[in-house]
Every structure is written in structure tokens, then in C-alpha cells.
């Protein structure tokens, strides 16, 4: 192939432990009526191959923005001011948009949306939408096959179509869709929320990606359905060795499926740790307070107090300092550097909490 950085798929699934995705000091601003909102301000994140990474934080802290930045589908008024996104050794920002759309999005990185209701086009059958995806993103697609504008009217090669159709049925079976054969003809509204979310998972896995970005995939679901979906997603990701960036604000779900968890606060990551460490000995005051505000039997309810900052003129230094009891002068001035506590546990705090195990 002409381009050295283009990887063929299937053959080179990165071995566990390799860095698959690395987000390096990413800054994103949104131009709004009131001014520029610094929604992401130096976010760092690393996902290793085969790992499920949880990204948790309050609503509005920038989780979706981060996911969209990685996928390169930021809204028109957003701008990545600084930082890099490395994916399997490639600088995604350096990649031309067309290559990004053709080779990365939906192919090597796929997406599971939060809202299984709105993310299907209500007017096209599920089958048609699946076929559309596979026409462009099937792992069996030859590299040079009808591209760009010419592909707009191009036919879907017969042989591949048949192979893809088989793969689709297979996949529907693995996500436990009842009656996979009948699925294709139905319209999205004929499925329940849980079924639609399962379809979304199937669509995300069909192109055999290396990374799946799941943006709060279960918040729209009921507890029992959520449990089913989480179980399914975890099983499939693990069995296929796919990395997942799992975005949520629900600590409970994060606990369920993640290997590691990164906490974000107002556009900055504050702590990142393996799941056991994260819940066992949280270091950042924000993480601690977050965990404390979960309702637990026999414990008083405790809120964090204060308000999340406005992103137009965020607090200087550590963005949490206005709400932090431990804040000192330096917290107001400078963002704390990442401190490694070993075992992949990193925290950005000048005054970490020494929690007893």
C-alpha cells in the first residue's frame, strides 16, 4: 500500500498492553454567543489495547466533547486549540478529513451513542441502515473500492454483500436479538429501547474495529435492561479483544465494566486509576466527594457543595479549587501535574487525600 501508516485490519490487532489511543493535552473551545467556552482544557487519556476505559464525570464536564474530538466530528463552532490524538501510532489530527471518514471512523474506531432512540433514522428500515454501514465499512471491503463521490452511486458488490449479510445475522445473534432474520425489515420504532441499544452494539462491532467509543450507552435504559446490555458489551469486547472508551456519569456502571477509570472535572482529567484502586483508595478530593455522595444504606447523604464552574471563564489552576476544602494558594495558580502512584494510578492534585484502604 502506498501509505505506510495505513494499517490493514484483523491482521494487526495490537497486543494487550500496547497504547492504542493516546490523548495528549487536548484543548477544545466552543465559540458561543457569550464568548469562547474552554470545554476541554489539557485533557490526557491513554487506552491500551483490549482495555475498557471508563470516563466518568458530572454532566457537562466534556465527556462527549472528548469522544467527538477523537472521532473528528466536532460541531462547527468547536476548535481543537492544542493537543494531539494518537491512534495506533498515527496522529489523527494530521489525517485529512476524507481519510479520517473513510478509514478511521466507523472502521477502526466505531461509536455507540447514548441515545438508541434518536440515533436510528426513523424512516429507514434497520436492515437498510445496517447495509449502508456495511457497504462502506465492512472489513471485507477492498481498499480501493468505490471511494468518494463516485461511490455515492456505486453498487454494493454482490459477493461482498452476501458475505456481509451473513456476518450481520451472525452478529445479531451474538447480541441476542430475538429472530435476527426478521430484524432487517423492521423500522427502528418497532424495537424496544434495549433491542435498539443491542443493534447499536452490533453495528459498532460489525466493522471489526480496534476501538469502540461508547458514549453513555445505557443512560436511556432501565436498570434491568442496563444490566443486560452492560453484560453483553463487556463479554463481546473482552472476547474480541476490543478496546472501549466507556463514557458515563454513573459510577456504578463504570464499576461494572471498566478495567480502568478516568475522572474528569470541568474539562480536565483529575484522576485515573485501575478500577479497584479507584473505588478503593481514591486520591483526588473530587473523586472522594463524588463517591461519598452516592446514597449508601446507613450513611448520611453528602453533597459536594458549590456549583460546577462556568466554562466561559473557568477558575485558574485546578478547576476544582473553588469547591475544594483542601485548596491552597498553589491550587489557584497552577494546574497540578500528574502524579503517579504506581500500578497505573495517576492523580492531579497538590493535596491528595490519604484514604485508608
Amino acid at each position, binding site marked *: 500500500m502506498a501509505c505506510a501508516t495505513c494499517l490493514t485490519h484483523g491482521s494487526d490487532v495490537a497486543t494487550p498492553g500496547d497504547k492504542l489511543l493516546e490523548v495528549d493535552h487536548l484543548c477544545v473551545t466552543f465559540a458561543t454567543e457569550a464568548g469562547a467556552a474552554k470545554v476541554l482544557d489539557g485533557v490526557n487519556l491513554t487506552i491500551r489495547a483490549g482495555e475498557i476505559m471508563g470516563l466518568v464525570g*458530572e*454532566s457537562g464536564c466534556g465527556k462527549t466533547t472528548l469522544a467527538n474530538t477523537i472521532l473528528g466530528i466536532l460541531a462547527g463552532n468547536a476548535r481543537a486549540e492544542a493537543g494531539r490524538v494518537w491512534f495506533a501510532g498515527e496522529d489523527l489530527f494530521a489525517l485529512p478529513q476524507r481519510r479520517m471518514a473513510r478509514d478511521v471512523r466507523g472502521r477502526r474506531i466505531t461509536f455507540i451513542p447514548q441515545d438508541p432512540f434518536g440515533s436510528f433514522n426513523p424512516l429507514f428500515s434497520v436492515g437498510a441502515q445496517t447495509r449502508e454501514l456495511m457497504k462502506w465499512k465492512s472489513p471485507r471491503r477492498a481498499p480501493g473500492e468505490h471511494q468518494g463521490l463516485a461511490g455515492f452511486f456505486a453498487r454494493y458488490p454482490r459477493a461482498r454483500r452476501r458475505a456481509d449479510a451473513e456476518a450481520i445475522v451472525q452478529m445479531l445473534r451474538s447480541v*441476542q436479538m430475538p429472530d435476527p432474520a426478521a430484524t432487517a425489515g423492521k423500522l427502528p420504532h418497532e424495537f*424496544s*429501547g*434495549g*433491542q435498539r441499544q443491542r443493534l447499536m452494539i452490533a453495528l459498532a462491532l460489525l466493522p471489526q474495529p480496534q476501538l469502540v467509543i461508547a458514549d453513555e450507552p445505557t443512560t436511556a435504559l*432501565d*436498570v*434491568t*435492561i*442496563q*444490566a*443486560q446490555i*452492560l*453484560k453483553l458489551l*463487556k*463479554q463481546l469486547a473482552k472476547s474480541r479483544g476490543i478496546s472501549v472508551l466507556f463514557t458515563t*456519569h*454513573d*459510577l*456504578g*456502571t463504570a*464499576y*461494572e*465494566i471498566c478495567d480502568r477509570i478516568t475522572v474528569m472535572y470541568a474539562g480536565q482529567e483529575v484522576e485515573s486509576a485501575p478500577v479497584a484502586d479507584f*473505588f*478503593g483508595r481514591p486520591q483526588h478530593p473530587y473523586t472522594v*466527594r*463524588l*463517591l461519598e*455522595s*452516592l*446514597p*449508601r*444504606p446507613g450513611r448520611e*447523604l*453528602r*453533597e*459536594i*457543595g458549590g*456549583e460546577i464552574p462556568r466554562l466561559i471563564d473557568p477558575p485558574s489552576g485546578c478547576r476544582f479549587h473553588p469547591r475544594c476544602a483542601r485548596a491552597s494558594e498553589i491550587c489557584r495558580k497552577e494546574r497540578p501535574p500528574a502524579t503517579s502512584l504506581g500500578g497505573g494510578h495517576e492523580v492531579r492534585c497538590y493535596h491528595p487525600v490519604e484514604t485508608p484502604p
Partner: protein
Amino acid sequence: MSQPPLLEVEGLSRHFPVRNMFGWQIGALRALDGVSFKVRPGETLGIVGESGCGKSTLGKALAGIHAASGGRILFEGTDITGCSAVQRRSVAPKLQYCYQDPGNSLDPRWTVRRSLAEPLIVHSALTARERDARIAKILEQVGLPLTHLELYPHELSGGQQRRVGLARILTLYPRLVVLDEPTSGLDVSVQASVLKLLRELQAAFTLSYLFISHDLSVVRAMCDRVAVMYAGRIVEEAPTERIFASAKHPYTLSLLAAIPNIGGERITDTFALEGEPPDPVRPPSGCRFRTRCPRAAAVCAGTDPPLRRIAPGQAAACLFA
């Protein structure tokens, strides 16, 4: 316990007509299908169940937003089931419904002050000055600064909107408040502060709550008793601790098993329930849970198990409970 119940619901049901594309009725959606329970003064009754099981419909039927299709609602001993809109208006101040989505329950074009004054204008004969005083007091009690009075709903955060929603209801000093999912969509920290507020208000105003939620951990933190709903029915009812300690209905058990338990066993390893909630237009015969129930047997398809007492204060609708 010997006090007369504040609210008594008997066999309440609510059916929504199902229409085809031409507006002809072709069936009924049994959103609520024979629900009975009692709420005593000062008590918090939790209603749990998954989306679409009829929780909001129940709350709205109590608040008079939906007319009941059957059954009776006794509030303070009087039957308020079939009363007219005008009669209903006299009950409204005492029995209030607090929306699942408080942001949307406020008129987006009205300032907080105007929204708060509205119930007082309708239900009281207070002068403008007295109203302002009352509003100021309530606002303080829900923990909002007076400066927020001139803001519009969209200028408030989710937690603040919820506080305004509560304040609007509390201006009339109700006796029973139906709280419809008061914490859904909130971040944990905001959720904690709202729950705290609800407790404080309950003490301050001697309120009773009908606490609707799908989050069992929240219910556990707030409620005295819990009723579990499934597909328009109550399938189990018991004091909160009993539910968590010895629930009997398989659906309650599944629900409990579906809540992530941080630090404990992972539900992704243990959870076993399969299938989807039934279509409320065509519920399965017999026990409605049988299509998903791990314990389901042939008899379950034939008999619709009634809610029956299985322990002091505990009732369940399962043949095997």
C-alpha cells in the same frame, strides 16, 4: 400506625386508548391496572419499577391530571376519583404532583417569581405583598437566593430547577406530594443535595411523600415502605428494609440484582434476567412477569396472581412467593 390513612387507593386503573392512524380506537393500553395501596400521614411510600410500568401514570392519576378509568382514590377520607375540574381545584393545594422533569414543568417564558406566585393567585386570597413574603420564605427554605426570583427557568441549573419546582408546590403547604423521579437525570452530587432537601422539607412541613423512582438505592435512602410495580400492577409491597433483605417476588429480586453494587460482586457476572418488558397493549396472560421470570411455570400463564400478604407488612403477587 393507627392514624387513618391520608391517601387510600383501591383498584385504581387507567387505560389509554390506542388509536390507529385515522384516530379510531383499536384497543387500550393498560398503563395502570388495578393498583391499591395506602399512604399514612408523614410517611414516604416508594414506588419503583422500570420505565413504562405506570409509575408516572399513577402519580398523575392521583393528582387529577389523568382521570381514572376505574377504582377509587380516597384523600383524607373523601373520594376524589370522579370529581370535576372545579371540585378538584379545592383538593389541588393539598395533594400535589412534582414533575419528573421540573425544568419543563415551569413555563419557559415566566420568571421564577411569576411561577411561584401562580398557585397563590389561584388558590389563596393573599395580597401581592403577602404573596411576596410567602415566596421569599419558601425560596429560602429550598435553599435558593432571592436574586433567583427574576431568572428564567433556562437560566437555572438542573438542581436549582428542581428546587423551584418544589418551592412552587410547597407554597400551598400541601399534605401529600407525589415526587416523580425527583433525582433522575441528576449527577450524584446534585442528587445528594436534592434528597437532603426533600428530607428537610418533609420535617419542616410535615409532608407525606409518594416517592416514585426506578433507582432502588435512592428509594432505600428515602422511603419507609416500598411498592414495586411491573406492567401496571403492584407486584410487591413491604417496608423498605424487608424489600432489601427478603424480597419475595422474582421481579423485585431481579431489580435488586440489576443495581450495580460498587465494591461488591459485579452484576455483569451475575445478572441473569433475559427478555424485554411486555407490550402494555398486549400484556401476557396470567402473571405479567412470566415471560421473563426465571421461576415461571405453566400455572403462571393461567392465573393472574393477586397481591397477597406473605409476611407482616409484606405482600407479593407471585404464586411461588
